[in-house]
């Protein structure tokens, strides 16, 4: 049996289980406290859960399926279900992807990465820090997966220049884990690094008509992200050590690559200016104009000033992104509007009554951080957040706190290649074994969770976000 056969068998099994669970829930007697619509919403939710976990269909196709099932099973009217595709969050994400495409297409992202690495790359320790911080910094402004893909060939050339042997070199293992971890950690800090953050915002808005501004998010999460980058550096150095003495050849490679880029082009300058103005606009007028409107205006500006062509956008953006996020918001909204989340809260009330809100939030954080190792972090947010909203209803905890404790840990996938494409990219080079990322990533995950608990307990209350 080839691997292709195995994958087909696994996918088929996932699809059968997903439909069986869905049909089982639909046909089960409706509990007294649950509406028929709520029960059907839970059935669709369960179907998506199994399909997302089993990776049986592309994520976007599962979302698209859910959109159709919602009116079919009479959970939402068709017009309501389809209009959720037009959620502002979806257009914010779309604009952000077009901006990222312009950054990559112009070469500005590569130039920034090289500039960062050259500044850091004076010793093995600082070079490792350079990989983490350049990945992290870039993932503040563009999708973390794109950052990992961008840095991958650069880190490979560093590894070749230093003659690091796959698996045998401890520094090589650290370097490639740094590539993945830097991008992952940076992805939690803004709305741009990981689209799960704006998705959480969209679900919040649909449920409670509340919002979090760009600045509020960055102030709440970026310090944690930067501390985590420092921790990652410390742990990788302690865990793997440094078995190279001189990185001057890596510096030469970086200098050569920077030289090959030539002077900064007009297009790069233009994209840089649009990017900076967009961020300023998100900060200054995000609440008035709306994040999504600014994001789309920025995308339009790229075309007006001839900084990108439509063909390039098509080459750099997979349009499934619209279906995925539109569908995820539709499922979450359906759970809320059908009363399914209220029923979950009712059922769980006896079990969680008496648990202090802080510990409930920590349970959500732990659930998010472990679930994200097995499924896409976007799916983790889409699945967990509506349930957590339901569980926290009546507890007095702000839904904004719930958004933070689900969306931020859902981005912290450090252990398994399946956790996030950034991990899969770094692992594919073969410089570290699964056990390296499993052990080191597991330890780092626990450290990150402990630090996160401190942030929730002591830092966020200073910002008015707390339990």
């Amino acid at each position: 049996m080839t691997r292709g056969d195995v994958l087909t068998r696994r996918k088929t099994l996932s699809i059968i289980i997903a439909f069986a669970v869905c049909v089982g829930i639909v046909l089960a007697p409706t509990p007294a406290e649950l509406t028929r619509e709520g029960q059907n919403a839970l059935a669709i939710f369960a179907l998506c859960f199994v399909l997302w976990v089993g990776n049986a269909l592309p994520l976007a196709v599962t979302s698209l399926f859910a959109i159709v099932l919602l009116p079919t099973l009479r959970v939402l009217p068709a017009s309501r279900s389809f209009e959720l595709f037009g959620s502002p969050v979806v257009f914010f994400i779309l604009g952000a992807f077009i901006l990222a495409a312009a950054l990559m297409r112009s070469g500005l992202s590569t130039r920034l990465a090289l500039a960062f690495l050259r500044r850091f790359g004076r010793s093995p320790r600082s070079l490792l820090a350079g990989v983490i911080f350049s990945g992290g910094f870039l993932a503040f402004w563009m999708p973390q997966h794109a950052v990992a893909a961008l840095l991958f060939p650069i880190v490979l050339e560093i590894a070749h220049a230093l003659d690091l042997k796959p698996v045998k070199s401890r520094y090589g293992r650290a370097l490639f884990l740094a590539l993945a971890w830097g991008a992952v950690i940076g992805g939690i800090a803004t709305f741009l690094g990981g689209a799960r953050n704006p998705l959480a915002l969209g679900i919040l808005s649909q449920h409670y008509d509340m919002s979090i501004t760009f600045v509020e998010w960055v102030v709440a999460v970026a310090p944690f992200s930067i501390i985590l980058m420092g921790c990652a550096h410390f742990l990788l150095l302690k865990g793997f050590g440094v078995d190279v003495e001189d990185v001057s050849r890596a510096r030469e490679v970086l200098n050569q690559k920077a030289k090959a880029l030539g002077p900064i082009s007009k297009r790069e300058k233009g994209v840089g200016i649009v990017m900076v103005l967009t961020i300023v606009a998100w900060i200054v007028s995000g609440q008035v104009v709306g994040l999504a409107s600014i994001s789309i205006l920025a995308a339009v500006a790229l075309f007006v000033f001839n900084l990108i062509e439509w063909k390039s956008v098509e080459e750099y953006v997979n349009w499934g992104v619209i279906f995925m996020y539109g569908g995820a918001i539709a499922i979450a909204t359906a759970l809320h509007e059908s009363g399914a989340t209220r029923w979950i809260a009712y059922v769980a009330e006896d079990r969680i009554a008496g648990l202090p809100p802080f510990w409930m939030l920590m349970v959500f954080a732990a659930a998010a951080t472990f679930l994200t190792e097995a499924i896409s972090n976007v799916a983790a947010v889409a699945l967990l957040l509506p349930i957590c909203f339901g569980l926290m209803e009546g507890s007095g905890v702000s839904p904004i706190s719930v958004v933070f404790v689900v969306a931020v840990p859902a981005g912290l996938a450090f252990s398994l290649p399946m956790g996030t494409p950034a991990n899969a990219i770094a692992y594919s080079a073969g410089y570290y074994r699964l056990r390296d990322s499993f052990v080191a990533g597991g330890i780092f995950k626990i450290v990150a969770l402990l630090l996160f608990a401190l942030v929730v307990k002591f830092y966020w209350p200073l910002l008015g976000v707390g339990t």
Partner: protein
Amino acid sequence: MNRVLLVLSASRVSNSCVDGALDAAESEGAELVVLFILDTVMPRDVRERMSHEGFLGEAPSGRLLLSMRRELKRQGINELTEVARAAERRGITHRTELVEGEFLMRALEAAQAEAPTVIFVAKRERAALSRLVSGSRAEELKDAATCDVKIHEGGDS
């Protein structure tokens, strides 16, 4: 002349496996055929995830795929060179081959073409759950091959 087939790939490299194959070839006076398979599945999986989960288009994911394939090829050539040097040092007649494709299929094709007396292969290091669900290609090779197959645990190099 008897043949010993050593099957390697980027994720299935093991010192004990290589040593076992060299020892067997030396003691039997056999020819050592070293096959390095450039696994096409993993790069394709990563590219697919970039597209389906990361929602990045063809340009960045295609470039990434190219980088990964180049790296795997470089590693394959290095590994084959090292094994060939070790075989030379011990006076073992040897041949090396680099092929691209699905691991099990390529390994079985080589087993059929070379008709070895024994095959040495390392298990890819994977999570227990993944192995439980998807099985082991090395074990499948053992079941399908007509000769003895020695399986070593991967990741000891």
